[in-house]
């Protein structure tokens, strides 16, 4: 380890660490634009210049390694003065249209200017007019008046996707980012560009002009759209006027997790959040809800438990079939195993998830479910089943999740299951599947609940709600806990489970 002093604070860092990283680790943030932890430093923006005792000039913290005994100052008058000068030069050709810029509020340039400069421009000359709406492909737009030529975008496409669609063309003050005619940005990670552009030069039409960054509440969650389970932020805001409980998802951003996704997420996960609202199942529905006069989702538990218990006492549990999904959490699958397999001794518990897609060779896996590995580890059968097999000698059919529809047409489901006496569907989405059921119970998506998933690498990671579900929807783990208790074959087992965390602690 190397020991050095930054701003009077004694710090030790591994040899080969840059001053910027060592400072960051010690909680000292040095302003920077071109540096990104995923790439080797290029030292082009000079915003990170710091004072090192014994050296005549300021040095870029992003590309200077720590040395034994170094004394570094990152906020001395000389450094701050230099920072102001760099900002002045960066802003000399910058559009300054922050009021209409998507990046405002989360812009490195704006933040640094506010923290260190706030000086008016000093140049009498007009700024050069440049293209402000250049289509880069993948729904991305480039504003060359805002670009600071940090080359983060170019380096991302060079080293991460290895597609190199963008380059720095021309030279000197005419330099500009661009792509070659007919070769627009086209890869499954293009959405990362709007995220790593430190200013508002690359904006994303998926987010463009929809809201302001400072209205958004970013909460941590895990992307459920494939087996990788990338760490993400789900950003939402309740709109105007603010109505509690109606927060809407506006954007998914990557969250750093070196074990899983590094700094990146794919476009499927980034732009796929529409599923959260699409055909959302919001209220209890189906003819049985009327007959039994059920109002809330939890009202379903008592009659369903009574039915299950009765079948079990008559030794007719073979006439029950259960369909689970690999979108359920480990806790929920564990509870489902306890209620249906252990307590009720139901043999027919199948798993039906979305259809596989093609993997992209980087993060995106073939399976489009977040917890197939978890389901397998808990001993669930992930082999395909048929509608006929599920209907054969069945009186009660319980289905979790909307995914039957990914494999069968609702009309076929309805006709194949016409002979099944009672059919209950627990789902957050209903695109017509519910019509085949006697009871449809609104549940929640992973982003709205507590739980854990086991990803394709076998990593178990837990998460908490990032978004509020519709008021009447209930998480599956809560319903399953209540059901287990109400069935009454092993009630004390379920009593301690007040949260998904309690379930997790009880799991082997």
């Amino acid at each position: 380890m190397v020991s050095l002093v930054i701003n009077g604070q004694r710090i030790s860092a591994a040899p080969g660490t840059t001053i910027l990283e060592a400072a960051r680790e010690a909680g000292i943030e040095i302003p920077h634009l071109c540096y990104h932890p995923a790439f080797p430093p290029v030292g082009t923006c000079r915003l990170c210049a710091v004072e090192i005792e014994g050296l005549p000039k300021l040095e870029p913290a992003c590309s200077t390694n720590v040395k034994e005994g170094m004394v570094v100052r990152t906020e001395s008058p000389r450094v701050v003065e230099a920072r102001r000068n760099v900002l002045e030069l960066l802003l000399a050709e910058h559009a300054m249209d922050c009021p209409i810029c998507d990046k405002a509020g989360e812009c490195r340039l704006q933040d640094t200017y506010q923290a260190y400069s706030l000086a008016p421009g000093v140049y009498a000359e007009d700024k050069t007019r440049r293209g402000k709406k250049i289509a880069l492909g993948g729904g991305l737009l480039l504003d060359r008046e805002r670009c600071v030529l940090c080359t983060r975008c170019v380096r991302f496409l060079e080293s991460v996707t290895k597609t190199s669609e963008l380059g720095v063309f021309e030279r000197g003050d005419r330099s500009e980012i661009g792509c070659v005619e007919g070769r627009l940005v086209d890869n499954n990670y293009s959405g990362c560009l709007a995220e790593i552009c430190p200013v508002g030069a690359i904006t994303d039409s998926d987010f463009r002009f929809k809201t302001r960054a400072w209205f958004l509440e970013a909460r941590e969650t895990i992307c459920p759209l494939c087996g990788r389970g990338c760490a993400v932020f789900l950003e939402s805001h309740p709109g105007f006027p603010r109505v509690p409980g109606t927060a809407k998802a506006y954007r998914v951003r990557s969250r750093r997790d070196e074990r899983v996704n590094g700094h990146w997420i794919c476009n499927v996960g980034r732009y796929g959040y529409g599923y959260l609202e699409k055909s959302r199942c919001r209220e209890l529905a189906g003819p049985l809800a009327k007959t039994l006069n059920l109002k809330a989702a939890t009202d379903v538990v008592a009659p369903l438990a009574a039915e299950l218990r009765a079948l079990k006492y008559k030794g007719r549990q073979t006439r029950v079939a259960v369909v689970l999904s690999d979108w359920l959490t480990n806790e929920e699958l564990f509870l489902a195993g306890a209620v249906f397999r252990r307590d009720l001794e139901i043999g027919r518990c199948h798993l039906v998830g979305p259809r596989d897609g093609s993997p992209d060779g980087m993060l995106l896996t073939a399976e489009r479910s977040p917890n197939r590995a978890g389901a397998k580890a808990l001993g669930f059968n992930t082999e395909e089943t048929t509608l006929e097999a599920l209907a054969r000698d069945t009186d009660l059919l319980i289905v979790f999740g909307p995914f039957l529809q990914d494999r069968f047409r609702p009309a076929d489901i309805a006709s194949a299951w016409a002979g099944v006496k009672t059919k209950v569907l627990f789902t957050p989405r209903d695109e017509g599947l519910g019509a085949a059921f006697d009871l449809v119970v609104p549940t929640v998506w992973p982003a709205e609940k507590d739980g854990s998933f086991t990803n394709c690498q076998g990593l178990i990671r837990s998460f908490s709600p990032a978004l509020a579900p519709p008021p009447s929807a209930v998480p599956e783990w809560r319903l399953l806990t209540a059901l287990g208790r109400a069935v009454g074959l092993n009630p004390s087992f379920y009593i301690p489970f007040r949260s998904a965390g309690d379930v997790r602690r009880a799991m082997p």
Partner: protein
Amino acid sequence: MSHNIPDRVKRRVEDILSRYPRREAALLPVLSALQEERGFLSHSDEEWAADTLGIPPAKVREVVTFYSLFRRKPAGRHHLQVCTNVSCALNGADGLLSHLRKKLGIAEGETSADGRFSLSSVECLGHCDEAPCLMVNDEHYGRLDRRALDELLEKLE
């Protein structure tokens, strides 16, 4: 994209490639060879170079647009490239440039209607000792003033 590269050029490029340890290192001479053929580099030339050298097309475009010696549109018979960098600027490059602009009736980046002259301003030509200077196609001329320039233009058909 169909490339229209004559065999003669292809043979030259093969010869150039044989002198470089890695194909991508030969980008500059290969681009020069391509430009000599038509007088400028077309999009298709760039793509062919990218393909032949195993470099992404955007990287080829970076190099083509960085160096003023590469042209992306046809030039006149005589391409006047006036240095406007420090030494030449101090010795009157701006005056020479505006003289040319007026006399030829074209701005930088343009070609005269008769196809005789093209005009560009360029960065340092490495002849600061003879500032102000310019290049006409591949020939260099230094210590210029308006009169010397007029005489030079006379000689260029």
